[in-house]
C-alpha cells in the first residue's frame, strides 16, 4: 500500500472520480431521498409517506413494517393488526432478495453518522481503541428479545439510536441527538466501526434476514487484485472480504456470502482493478473456469 495515497486515490486515477464514487453517491442519494420523502410531510405538507422506519404507510396503500420491532412486540405477547403484518411480509421479502444489511447501508440514517465518524477517524489518523468482538451484536440482539420478554415492553426502543434518530428527525428530536452524538463519538474515538459493525442489534437482525439473499458482491476478477488493501480499509465489515478475495487457492468462491456484508458497494468503487461487482450468490464457482464463466455472463 502506498503510504502517500489516500483510500480510493488509485481508483480515482484509474477510473475517474465518478466510477470511484458511483455506489457511494447512489447510496447517499438513496439514504437522503428516503429521509426526504419522510420529511416532505411534516416539513412541506406533502404526504407521500406517513410514520417512520418502525412502520410507515406510503401513498396510503403501501405498508412497511420493521420486522425487528414487530418481533420484539410479538415476544411481549402482542400480535399486530393486518396492515402491520403485511408490512412485515413486504419488508422481509425485499431484504431476503437484496441482502438484509442493505438496510444498514442504503436506508438507516445512523449509517450517515457512523460513516462520517469512520471518515473522520481515517482522516485525522485515529488508530486502535477498545476491541469488541463483531459477534457481540448477536448477543445484544438476543438480549433485546430477552428484555422484551422479561419486561413485557419494547425495552430496546428506549435506547435504540436507529429509531431515535429517524423518529427524531421527523417528529422532533429532543435530546435524542445526544444518543446520536454518543454513537458518533464511540465510532470516532472508542472503536473503529463500533456501533454498526459490532453492537447494533438492528443490523444483526437484518444480517440474519439476508443470510441467503441472492444479491451479493462478488470478487469476480480477484486474480487482478494488486493487494492495495483499499477495499479492506474502506469496508465497514472487512472480515467478509478476505476469503472470497484471497482464498481462491483453498477452493473458496468469489462471492461475498457473509451476511455481515452490507452491500454498500464501496469495495467496487475503491478498487482500481475493478475486482468487485454486484452479482448473484449463485455464480460462485471456485475455479478459474467458473470465474471466467461468471464474467462472460
Amino acid at each position, binding site marked *: 500500500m502506498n503510504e502517500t495515497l489516500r483510500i480510493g486515490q488509485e481508483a480515482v486515477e484509474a477510473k475517474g472520480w465518478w466510477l470511484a464514487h458511483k455506489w457511494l453517491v447512489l447510496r447517499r442519494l438513496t439514504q437522503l431521498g428516503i429521509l426526504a420523502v419522510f420529511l416532505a*410531510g411534516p416539513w412541506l405538507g406533502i*404526504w407521500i409517506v*406517513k*410514520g*417512520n422506519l*418502525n*412502520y*410507515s*404507510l406510503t401513498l396510503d396503500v403501501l*405498508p412497511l*413494517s*420493521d420486522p425487528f*420491532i*414487530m418481533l420484539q*412486540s410479538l415476544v*411481549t*405477547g*402482542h*400480535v*399486530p*393488526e393486518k*396492515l*402491520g403484518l403485511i*408490512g412485515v411480509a413486504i419488508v422481509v421479502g425485499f431484504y431476503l432478495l437484496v441482502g438484509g444489511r442493505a438496510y444498514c447501508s442504503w436506508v438507516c440514517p445512523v449509517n450517515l453518522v457512523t460513516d462520517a465518524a469512520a471518515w473522520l477517524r481515517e482522516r485525522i489518523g485515529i488508530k486502535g481503541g477498545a476491541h*469488541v*468482538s463483531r*459477534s*457481540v451484536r448477536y*448477543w*445484544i440482539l438476543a*438480549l433485546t428479545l*430477552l*428484555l*422484551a420478554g*422479561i*419486561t*413485557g*415492553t*419494547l*425495552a*430496546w*426502543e*428506549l*435506547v435504540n439510536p436507529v*429509531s*431515535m434518530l429517524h*423518529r*427524531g428527525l*421527523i*417528529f*422532533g*428530536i*429532543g*435530546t*435524542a441527538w*445526544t*444518543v446520536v452524538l454518543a454513537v458518533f463519538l464511540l465510532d470516532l474515538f472508542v472503536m473503529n466501526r463500533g456501533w454498526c459493525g459490532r453492537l447494533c442489534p438492528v443490523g444483526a437482525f437484518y444480517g440474519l434476514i439476508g443470510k441467503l439473499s441472492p444479491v451479493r458482491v462478488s470478487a469476480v476478477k480477484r486474480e487482478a487484485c494488486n493487494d492495495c488493501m483499499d477495499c479492506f480499509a474502506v469496508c465497514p465489515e472487512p472480515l467478509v472480504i478476505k476469503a472470497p478475495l484471497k482464498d481462491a487457492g483453498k477452493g473458496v468462491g468469489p462471492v461475498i456470502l457473509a451476511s455481515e456484508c452490507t452491500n454498500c458497494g464501496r469495495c467496487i468503487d475503491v478498487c482500481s482493478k475493478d475486482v468487485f461487482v454486484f452479482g448473484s450468490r449463485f455464480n460462485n464457482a471456485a475455479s478459474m473456469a467458473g470465474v471466467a464463466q461468471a464474467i462472460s455472463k
Partner: protein
Amino acid sequence: MDSVKKSALAARRQFLLDAARMAGGVGVLGLGVGLYAKQAKALPAAAIRPPGAGTEQDFLGACIRCGMCVRDCPYNILFLAKPEQPIATGTPFFVARTGPCEMCEDIPCVKACPTGALDHKLTDINNSRMGLAVLVDKETCLNFLGLRCDVCYRVCPLIDKAITLELRHNERTGAHTIFEPVVHSDQCTGCGKCEAACVTEVAAIKVYPIKLAKGELSQHYRLGWEEKRKAGGSLVEPEVEHRYNLPEGMKYEHGKGLSAADTPSTGVDSLQATLPDPGKNAAPAGMPRNIPGGGLGNRMSDDAPR
C-alpha cells in the same frame, strides 16, 4: 504432546475469558436497559394515552412508536415522547390541559394504528377510557365556592352522564345552593375537555390515567342494596324498620321529610335572636370581635376566666 495440551488449555482459557467478557458486557447493558424500561412504565399523571390504549404495560409492548396516530389525528393533539420526557420514548400521548381529545366519531388515530396498540375493537368513541376526570381541588373549584361556573359540566361531551351537577346546601351563605360537579367513571372517557376548559389558573378538575384516578373495592365486597334488588327482596329476615329519634309529635318519612309539627318553631332565626349584642364586651383593636360562645377576643381580654 505436552505443548499441545498446554496450547489447548490456553485456548480454552481464552475462550472462557472471551465468553465471560461478552456475557459481562452484554449483561451490564441489559441490566441498564431493563431497569430503565421498568422506570419508563410509570406514566406521569399529565400524559394521557390516545383512545383505545389498554393498560400501560400492554401498551408499551404493543406500541411500536411509529407515530401513525399522531399523523392521522385531525386536531394534532398527539405527540411522541422525547427521551427527556418522563414517558416511554417514542410513545404517543396528549396533554389534556393544552390539547384535549376532540372525540372524533370515526376515531382516525385508532384506525391508523398498525399494531392494535390502540384497540381496533373500539368503534364508539364514547366507550373509550383514555383516563378519568377527577375534581382534585374542591378548595378552588368555583362551583364549590358557590358560583355557577359549570364550565367543566357544559363542555363535557357526555354532559349529564360523565359529569353531573349534584345540588347541596351552601352552609356558608345559608341561603344558596352549591352545584357540585361529580364525575362518573362508568361514563367518563377521559377526553380532558373539562380540564382544558377549567377557568381557574391551575385546573381544579384534571384527567389522570385511570390507574392513578380510580379506586377499587375488594373482591369480596357486596353492595347490600344491589343484592337486595337482584334477589327481589331483603336477604336479611326480618327486615328491621329504622326508628328515628324525633321530638314528640313529629314523624319522618324518607323522601318526604318531617311532618305534623305541633310544637313552636325553634329555627335558625330564633337562635340568632338570642346571641349577645356585639357592641358590648368589644375586643381590643385588631382583635376579632366578640364571638358567641367565647371567641378569641374574650379569651385574650384581661377579665377573661383563666
